């Protein structure tokens, strides 16, 4: 009997996603889809608002990664106020923003690895769902849980010191930044008591990488073969090819590593990238125009960045990058679970960058803001934790926003996540009479590797049901499960 299986919403990812898997009468996979069922309309909402509000206003988009939106919007408004595209800021302005961004990257990746991914790695994808969570990590691997909590807290403290406050931070403004780092803030982040200092963070970042590599040695099939599929990859890179999470040129490579987008200026991204609308999802499907809708899709995020970059400019992360590249024989890794590895390399890189910046006296003195001639359009790109984030604004002469286009990281990964779902569902569900909890989690693990964020930023109590439904070939509900 044909079945339609619905997993709704996906656990441990943001917002409201739904996976449907259609099986035919023989139990083979007919079709898989990851649906995004919420529509936010934020791009229309900001029309008619003054451009200088954008760096604060866009933080309403998401309570998970407001710093990424804050900085991408600030970069777009830099162009509007004539401060250039990332390289026109004062040294203090750029370095303070970078410090904020590395803090965001450090805390977000730490949360993902220790609290979202580690339960799957420690206990197994098909283990008892009751056990597969951070509470049981704390019970059985307390040191890991402590590290995760404190690394997350440290990153938040960096953000607080640079953005000014945790909610609706105001640090980045059009053309620069509105504060210096104080001596007290610097000393706290450099030499804080207990665990709260940068040397401990670097040490723990290295420990986490060792933990992963040790796990990898013993579980090659899980890490190397789970949901593997060919993909193109896109990210910002520095002009010399280095990994750069804050600014650079746009590069894409194909599954063999050949450049298919040649280090272009992101102010003209729309010449190279378009978005396709599909009737079954509110989330669009971006693609490279030159290659076309069918095969022009690409992946973004930590794994994409490892695949596009040629080197890393901090020594400890570069050493790990070398191991990663050697393991993949110098070619892009098409293994979604390698995203965990990539994320850990970026945690270490971010910690090293934070230490360098904290020791830089230019964060505590110097000009904060640059201004020039006004422009009526600006594009801001940043490598958010989940991947490349695009903010594009046009304004009228009276400074009001007339057009906004946002391509968020999770949207860029829309097609890759669908591909991953299809790979896993085909592998674990084909021909099976019963769909088990472990099979459903395997699908979710594939999605979680992309760390998607579908958040609407509201969280009021009683809003988070977890539902699983199975329909027969006539779309009759035959089973419903609730999670959480």
């Amino acid at each position, binding site marked *: 009997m044909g079945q339609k299986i619905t997993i709704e*919403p996906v656990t*441990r990812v943001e917002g409201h996603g739904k996976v449907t898997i259609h099986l035919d009468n023989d139990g083979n996979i007919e079709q898989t889809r990851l649906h995004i069922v919420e529509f936010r309309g934020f791009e229309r909402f900001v029309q008619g608002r003054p451009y200088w509000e954008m760096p604060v206003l866009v933080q309403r988009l998401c309570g998970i990664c*407001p710093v990424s939106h804050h900085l991408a919007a600030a970069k777009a408004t830099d162009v509007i106020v004539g401060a250039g595209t990332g390289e026109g800021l004062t040294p203090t302005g750029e370095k303070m923003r970078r410090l904020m961004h590395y803090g965001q990257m450090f805390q977000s990746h730490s949360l993902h690895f220790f*609290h979202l991914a580690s339960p799957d790695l420690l206990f197994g994808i098909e283990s008892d769902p009751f056990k597969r969570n951070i509470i049981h990590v*704390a019970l059985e691997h307390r040191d890991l849980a402590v590290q995760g*909590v404190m690394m997350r807290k440290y990153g938040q403290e960096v953000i607080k010191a640079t953005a000014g406050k945790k909610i609706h931070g105001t640090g980045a403004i059009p053309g620069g930044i509105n504060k210096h780092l104080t001596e007290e803030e610097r000393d706290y982040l450099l030499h804080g008591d207990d665990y709260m200092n940068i040397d401990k963070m670097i040490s723990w970042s290295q420990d986490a990488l060792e933990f992963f590599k040790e796990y990898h040695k013993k579980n090659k099939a899980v890490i190397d073969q789970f949901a593997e599929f060919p993909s193109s990859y896109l990210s910002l890179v520095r002009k010399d090819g280095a990994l750069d999470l804050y600014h650079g040129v746009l590069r894409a490579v194909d599954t063999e590593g050949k450049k298919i987008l040649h280090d272009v200026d992101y102010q003209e991204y729309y010449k190279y990238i378009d978005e396709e609308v599909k009737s079954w999802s509110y989330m669009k499907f971006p693609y490279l125009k030159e290659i076309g809708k069918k095969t022009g899709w690409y992946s973004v995020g930590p794994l994409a960045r490892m695949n596009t970059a040629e080197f890393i400019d901090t020594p400890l992360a570069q050493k790990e990058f070398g191991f990663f590249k050697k393991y993949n024989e110098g070619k892009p890794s098409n293994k979604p679970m390698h995203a965990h590895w990539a994320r850990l390399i970026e945690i270490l890189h971010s910690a090293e960058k934070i230490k360098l910046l904290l020791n830089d006296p230019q964060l505590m003195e110097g000009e904060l803001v640059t201004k020039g001639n006004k422009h009526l359009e600006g594009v801001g790109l940043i490598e958010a934790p989940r991947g490349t984030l695009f903010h594009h604004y046009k304004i009228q002469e009276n400074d009001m926003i007339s057009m906004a286009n946002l391509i968020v990281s999770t949207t860029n990964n829309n097609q890759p996540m669908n591909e991953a779902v299809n790979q896993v569902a085909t592998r674990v569900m084909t021909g099976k009479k019963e769909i088990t909890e472990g099979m459903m989690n395997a699908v979710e693990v594939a999605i979680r590797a992309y760390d998607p964020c579908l958040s609407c*930023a509201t*969280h009021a*109590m*009683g809003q988070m049901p977890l539902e699983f439904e199975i329909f027969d070939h006539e779309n009759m509900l035959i089973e419903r499960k609730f999670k959480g």
Partner: protein
Amino acid sequence: MTEHTPNILVYGYGNPGRQDDGLGVKLTETLEKWITDNHYSQIRTDSNYQLNLEDVATISAYDLVIFADASKEDVPDFRFEPLEASDRVEFTMHAVSPAFILHLCNKVFNHQPRAYLLHIKGYEWEFMENMTGKAGTNLKAATEFLQGFLRNLIQSDC
């Protein structure tokens, strides 16, 4: 303040950019002035878009924690209740429940502060800064109640 007076944290969470979702944060902002005016040095406030795992470390430093949040539940204006720790895993781990934070605090730091939850009834959740009039009325009532609760707590320890 005596040595018996608990260290108290009032933690409001929500997104003030989504109308009534910001009720918990607004409560802490209102309370800050009251704390300063009354020299209640044993009370601290904190706020964020949502609770997350680093808050385990934050609450571990306190004896008593009061979480304040907007609520869609069927409560008249506000509801104040003791909070029990829970290991129930929520839909998302990017934002977690106060009961989960409390439970994890015990497991990670071997300390579980006494805790309460203050639900404040909200009505609208769109992309707007200002809360609804009815939510504002509920916030006022909840704030006055909490001030009385905290005042009694401190006075009973003096």
